[in-house]
């Protein structure tokens, strides 16, 4: 082993130790626990595949898988579009841009629990500001668009929409990454397009997005990994999985309830294994799609940033 590699390993050691002790070992223990019945009070008992068999018939898990996947399918793209849109809007120097950037970042800085409680108030069907706003100019208890106001916490569809809505404001991190990536793009690329007389749409489609593609790819995968868990606090605090039976019950909530409310740690570990598998499948699908697109030159899978 060369000196460089030894040094590299030495520098990595603290991280690797942390990774093994704090992540990999607990993860392995969890996977092992999935084959037991464990309540942490009495000893645990090996049950083989029983937990996984029960998973397949558990209505909460079934509903949660559907909910989690639909959340993934709606929230991840919307969050990305919003973050990219705002980053492109706010990358130029202009008046109040600093304030606007801070405003985009701010919701992400609010502690999750407080953020959830805030939305509980915002989404209050009658007194909440969201519906108050929607009903401005509306008549007879209808919104300004003439429809009935959304019943955020009592209608299944509206509640799911509410959870997605909540997720759309915590895009600060994604926003910062896109913003930084955009600022790092070479001005020549834009001048080149300008010289050819490209209009804004063409610049976006043919210059900005392809150049940002490597970053966006990473962000999509990252957001997918996170979003299965990201739905947890809002559902615990705002909807508690309801409206009943399982309108906003996501896997993270099922896991929490089984483990910490019903003390079924073994079964909850099986739910965790399911979550892990779903995440892996989602990322695998994205990765294959992106690779296919990259090979067709649709996204910059091969692209390098300037200077390389």
């Amino acid at each position, binding site marked *: 082993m060369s000196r460089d590699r030894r040094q590299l390993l030495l520098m990595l050691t603290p991280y690797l130790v942390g990774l093994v002790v704090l992540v990999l070992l607990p993860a392995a223990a969890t996977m092992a626990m999935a084959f037991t019945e464990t309540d942490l009070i009495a000893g645990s008992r090996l049950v083989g595949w029983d937990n996984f068999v029960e998973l397949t018939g558990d209505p909460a898990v079934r509903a949660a898988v559907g909910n989690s996947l639909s959340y993934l399918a709606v929230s991840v793209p919307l969050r990305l579009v919003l973050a990219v849109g705002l980053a492109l809007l706010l990358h130029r120097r202009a008046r109040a841009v600093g304030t606007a950037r801070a405003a985009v970042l701010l919701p992400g800085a609010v502690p999750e629990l407080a953020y959830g409680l805030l939305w509980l108030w915002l989404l209050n069907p009658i007194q909440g500001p969201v519906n108050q706003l929607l009903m401005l100019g509306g008549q007879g208890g209808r919104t300004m668009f003439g429809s009935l106001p959304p019943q955020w916490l009592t209608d299944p569809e509206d509640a799911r929409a509410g959870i997605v809505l909540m997720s759309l404001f915590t895009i600060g991190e994604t926003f910062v990454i896109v913003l930084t990536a955009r600022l790092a793009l070479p001005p*020549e690329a834009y*001048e080149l397009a300008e010289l050819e007389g490209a209009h804004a749409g063409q610049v976006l489609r043919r210059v900005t997005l*392809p150049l940002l593609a490597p970053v966006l790819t990473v962000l999509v995968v990252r957001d997918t990994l996170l979003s299965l868990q990201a739905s947890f606090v809002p559902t615990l605090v705002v909807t508690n999985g309801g409206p009943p039976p399982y309108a906003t019950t996501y896997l993270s909530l099922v896991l929490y309830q089984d483990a910490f409310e019903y003390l079924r740690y073994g079964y909850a570990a099986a739910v965790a294994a399911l979550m892990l598998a779903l995440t892996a499948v989602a990322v695998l699908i994205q990765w294959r799609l992106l690779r296919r697109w990259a090979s067709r030159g649709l996204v910059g899978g091969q692209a390098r940033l300037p200077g390389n």
Partner: protein
Amino acid sequence: MTAGLSLHGVHLTRGAVTALRGVDLVVDRGELLVVLGPSGAGKSSLLRAIAGLDPVTGGTVKIGGRDVTGLRPGQRNVSMVFQSYSLLPHLTVADNIAFGHRIRGADRRAAAARAAQAAATVGCQDLLTRRPHQLSGGERQRVALARVLVREPDVFLLDEPLANLDAGLRTRMRTEIRAVHDRLGATTVYVTHDQSEAMALGDRIAVLRDGRIEQVDTPDEVWHRPRTRHVASFVGAPGMNLLPGDGPLRLPGVQASAVELGVRPEHVRLGGDGTTRDGPPGDVERVEVLGEDALVHVRLGGHALIARVPARTRPAPGDRVTVGVAEEHLHAFDLVTGERIPLPAGAGRAAAR
């Protein structure tokens, strides 16, 4: 005949920085004009003003007689090669070359055909399916050239296109650029800080300093009759020696205290052991050998002077030499304005004090 490109009194201010201070410039149709100047002189600003990338704060820009001062870059019909990064990394060479056509709505097949043709012009037809990161520096600039050639713009703008290449490649590429230009005969503005590149390429050279044009002339004129002391000292490697008019060299017929005298290193003759009457004596301080030639740093009456002599006849450091300069090789510049002073005919030889 209308000029290919003309600028009248162009001013350009960006923030607190004034980049161009009243530039007048006319480029003939089909001419290759090189803009030469040290860094910070405003060369790139001049190109950007022509392209419309930076809006001018005063003056007018005309392309082919058409006033484009108020037009956006896309409406000016110009093409530009940047110093670095002229290619989009996510596109293949073919797509990069065809980029402008595609933006302007050409269909994929027609654009590809034109791209292949342009690529052939600069000899990169074998690279069409590659991506920029798979290319060498020279190949990249070749592709960048093909990208501007694919259209027929009214003016080509090249912003130090060879600056990032190594010396050998630079020389080869500039020959090719000249060849392509001669074939196409397009009006071209070429920016560089490299005076040998300027000399080799330009039909004419515009020397830019501090946002102003000091001289626009053929390379010969710029070399032999620099309009200002700055042009004199900037053009040439090394540039012209400049000494006070009342120093060791004298030129009759001019007011010695009001001028600066210039002589190119190539025109300084060093002789013997400093005892001949050929010129004033000087001490050799340092000698740099550049293959066939040598640069000899001479201290002459308290002034530094560089002479370019054949390497085999060079003196050694510490030698005492006579410094001879033929009068026809002396240039005189006004001490205050720095402008060239026309010399009276039949002036005598420089003589020792």
